């Protein structure tokens, strides 16, 4: 039971990461749109309760003369960071699924 429960939280974290990826992609696509303000996803403090995270305007970013506040270097960093976190999370999830499978097989298969 506890194994499946943790998997659920990891799944929610993955969906948070993919939501964030969508917002980062949107910021990069709108890097040259006048008046566009960079957005970010507010990180939930607790992934045990499933709630869609809110998309908010990224705070503290200076706007250019055309009113656009996308900083492409910040988005590149977030993109890399997000991919690494996603990869790490799927690795952990895989190893947990492996543990469950091993329990099903009564520890015979590795």
């Amino acid at each position, binding site marked *: 039971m506890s194994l499946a429960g943790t998997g659920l939280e990891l799944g929610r974290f993955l969906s948070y990461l993919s939501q964030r*990826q969508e917002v980062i*992609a*949107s910021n990069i*696509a*709108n890097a040259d749109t006048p008046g566009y303000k960079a957005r970010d996803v507010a990180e939930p403090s607790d992934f045990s309760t499933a709630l869609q*995270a809110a998309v908010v305007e990224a705070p503290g970013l200076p706007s250019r003369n055309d009113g656009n506040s996308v900083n492409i270097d910040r988005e590149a960093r977030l993109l890399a960071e997000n*991919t690494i976190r996603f990869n790490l999370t799927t690795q952990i999830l*895989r190893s947990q699924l492996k543990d469950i499978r091993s329990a099903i097989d009564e520890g015979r298969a590795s």
Partner: protein
Amino acid sequence: MSLFNAISISASGMDAQRIRAELITENLANADTTRTPEGGPYQRKDAIFSSAPLQASFAQTLSEFSTGTPEGVTVSQIAVDDSEPERRYLPGHPDADPDGYVAFPKIDPASEMVDLMSASRSYQANVAAISSVKDMIARSIDLFR
């Protein structure tokens, strides 16, 4: 599925940047064009970008209504620069006015090249975003193995 949405958003960015690059190359190619179907010299064109939500299902729209929408980008307008043409003194030219001046498009190749580089870099940024999403999707599929 929001990861596929991220790909669509980046694709909209690529599309917009490609249109922008096309217009810039059109401007460069027509830097010395004195005749157009509309009459007069060629006029510089520029793509105006605006953010736009993607076509989405009802459920997606509903969830985005409560959480805010990540938006793609579209070319909302192609602006034609109608500033005064550059006048050069070429009395023998067939398009010369009675004073011997020919109206040429007001195009600065240096600034067009800078815009072209900017469009190309932005395009690359969108491609990078797509390849990282592809990587994430591949990792998700690996969970089944």
